[in-house]
């Protein structure tokens, strides 16, 4: 069957990329312990009452979290896979500190070739231009904001120096992660044209958002399971009700589906930051993570019942973090539809 072998793409499967690495696991465990020591759920609640925790940033820098996923020549360590693993832990902890936005901005600069010692050691944030203002995601204390605009199938990366510039804090669905708003005219900035499509430039940041949402989803699912095991109704643990079990199983499938896509995306982007494959997988991963987070936090709330609607439980914290973060870089429906509209012919 000569025709078959000559017309198909050669495909050697990189099984090794999917073997869990001990280094990744070490980062996960260290971060989990560290976040648990740094702050509690009550600290998150207090940020809702206007008591932010800017003091959390320095320990994160000291522990080297801001270096993960950066190149060695900038003192970086670990891979994009390690960064997503770290951000999943940040999501699981509902970290009330701007690690995600920092990582997103750093990844944009890295893809655009703009990351250097100065920017790598600044407090970065991801931002968006809306009319005459700059909206900085989780950016009340950021020194540098990074925004990516589309321009004729290519993109423009804008780097804003925020140090010393006045900013308004905009209330957000997740009060532990407020927006900063600044007048564009006030901010010194540089523009860098980039030959890639915006979806390529934001592929790594999208994967970062996906990772955090997966962590939020996993936390909500764990919370739901713990509740289902402990709570009795009609004389039995509600976790023994088949309908509850099946809902939890379905949510678990959604979480692992997203985790697989996020891993695939990080592997593809780690191999080639401007690959179409990476851009595509990052959108699917982000969409899947949004699904998983939306579904898991809703399920936790539903299972907890009235308690899930109060701050006696952590459920509203997870709902707010998930709903605040899901639209970032595109909501699930939008991303799925965009990938489908692009897809012609064979799936791969």
């Amino acid at each position, binding site marked *: 069957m000569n025709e078959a072998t000559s017309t198909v793409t050669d495909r050697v499967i990189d099984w090794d990329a999917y073997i869990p690495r001990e280094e990744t696991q070490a980062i996960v465990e260290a971060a989990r312990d560290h976040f648990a020591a740094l702050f509690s759920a009550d600290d998150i609640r207090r940020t809702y009452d206007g008591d932010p925790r800017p003091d959390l940033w320095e320990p994160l820098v000291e522990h080297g979290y801001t270096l993960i996923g950066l190149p060695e020549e900038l003192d970086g360590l670990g891979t994009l896979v390690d960064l997503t693993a770290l951000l999943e832990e940040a999501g699981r902890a509902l970290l009330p500190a701007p690690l995600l936005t920092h990582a997103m901005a750093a990844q944009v600069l890295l893809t655009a070739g703009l990351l250097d010692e100065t920017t790598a050691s600044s407090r970065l944030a991801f931002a968006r231009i809306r009319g005459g203002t700059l909206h900085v995601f989780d950016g009340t204390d950021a020194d540098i904001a990074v925004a990516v605009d589309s321009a004729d199938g290519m993109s423009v990366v804008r780097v804003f120096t925020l140090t010393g510039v006045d900013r308004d804090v905009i209330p957000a669905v997740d009060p532990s992660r407020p927006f900063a708003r600044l007048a564009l005219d006030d901010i010194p900035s540089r523009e860098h044209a980039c030959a890639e499509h915006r979806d390529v430039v934001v592929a790594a940041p999208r994967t970062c958002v996906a990772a955090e949402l997966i962590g939020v989803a996993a936390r909500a699912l764990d919370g739901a399971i713990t509740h289902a095991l402990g709570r009795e109704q009609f004389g039995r643990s509600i976790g023994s009700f088949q309908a509850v079990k099946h809902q939890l199983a379905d949510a678990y499938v959604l979480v692992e589906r997203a985790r697989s896509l996020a891993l695939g995306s990080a592997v593809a982007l780690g191999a080639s930051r401007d690959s179409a494959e990476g851009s595509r997988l990052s959108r699917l991963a982000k969409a899947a993570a949004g699904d998983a987070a939306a579904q898991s936090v809703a399920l936790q*709330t539903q299972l907890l019942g009235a308690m899930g609607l109060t701050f006696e439980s952590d459920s509203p914290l997870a709902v707010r973090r998930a709903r605040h973060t899901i639209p970032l870089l595109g909501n699930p*429906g939008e991303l799925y539809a965009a990938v489908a509209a692009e897809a012609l012919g064979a799936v791969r």
Partner: protein
Amino acid sequence: MTDSLTQFRSFLDTVLPDDYAVAYAGYREDEDLRRRFQAAMFDEGWLIPEWPHGLGGRDLPRTEALTIRIEGARLRIPREMNIQAAGVVAPALRTFGTPEQQERYLRPTLRGEAWWALGMSEPDAGSDLASLRTTAVRRGDMFVVNGQKVWTTQADGSRWCTLYARTDATAPKHRGISCLIVDMDSPGITVRRIRTAGPSIESFCEVFFDDVEVPADQLLGELNGGWRVAVSALEHERDMIWVHNWLEMQRALAPVLDDPARPSYANERVGRLLADTEAIRLTGMRSVGARTAGIYSPISGILKLFGSESVQRAAALALELGADEDEVPLDRFDEYLESMAATIYGGTSEVQRNIIAERVLGLPKGA
């Protein structure tokens, strides 16, 4: 237009501010208007139009009364401050109350002058009323109440409470429960407010009862007949539930439909929700029609589940499409949060599915 509808519109013109139709959102927080409005609704017989004159009604036929209530809901008339007073407690008082109880409570309850708390849920029972542990022990001409209620809406502002307590510890679970009318100012009652997940979720309280004395004549319904009172009270508002959900669907979808930049990829989901909207209305009407004809119809059993889940899907879609890539509008989030509560209150969706499967489809009880 029927006469009563014309009269109701005239009444609204008289009692509501001129700009109410366009500015109703701003009047939502106008507590004074809301109080005055409820009293006027009662006085003029529009509060429960199918009830007798003098009791907030004007003896209208059931469907005509429902038309009035739908019209009111559609025009977004001011909400009652303490919705369960006229909606849940008053019907129970009318069905189960003694003449003295009706004389004492009905009027202030319906006019909105006295708020009520519904003392049902407990820490380890949740929506499983039959498992409640609060006790009421007869001592002389008093019941002495001990126990704890949770998730009690507006307990901190209520004058009275319909308290469900165990009066016979030896009877099978749901047979030993009675309903007592409790004065919330009684010694021994402590109320603790619980912070809710957002402003759209009505305040909850924990209520502790420590040797609270309740006069024996404050028993509502029969001794150990509390189960019947509870079931009857919760079923009274069935029609208003579908009307409410139907209007909530419209409210949630309006900004989506109005959005000139609505993305086409979501059209299938939007259309599905439009079908849900109409189906809620039409199923509600079928249910009323069957009742009017005196025919048993199982479909009213799906209205709560179908309506509340549809509203949640609509609110989630509006939330998703309302986000401007990164910023989520706070009001749409609050509405989504409110819709999450709708599948929990008054019997969770899981309980509703069990009820449909068992009572409508005839499947056996069991897990």
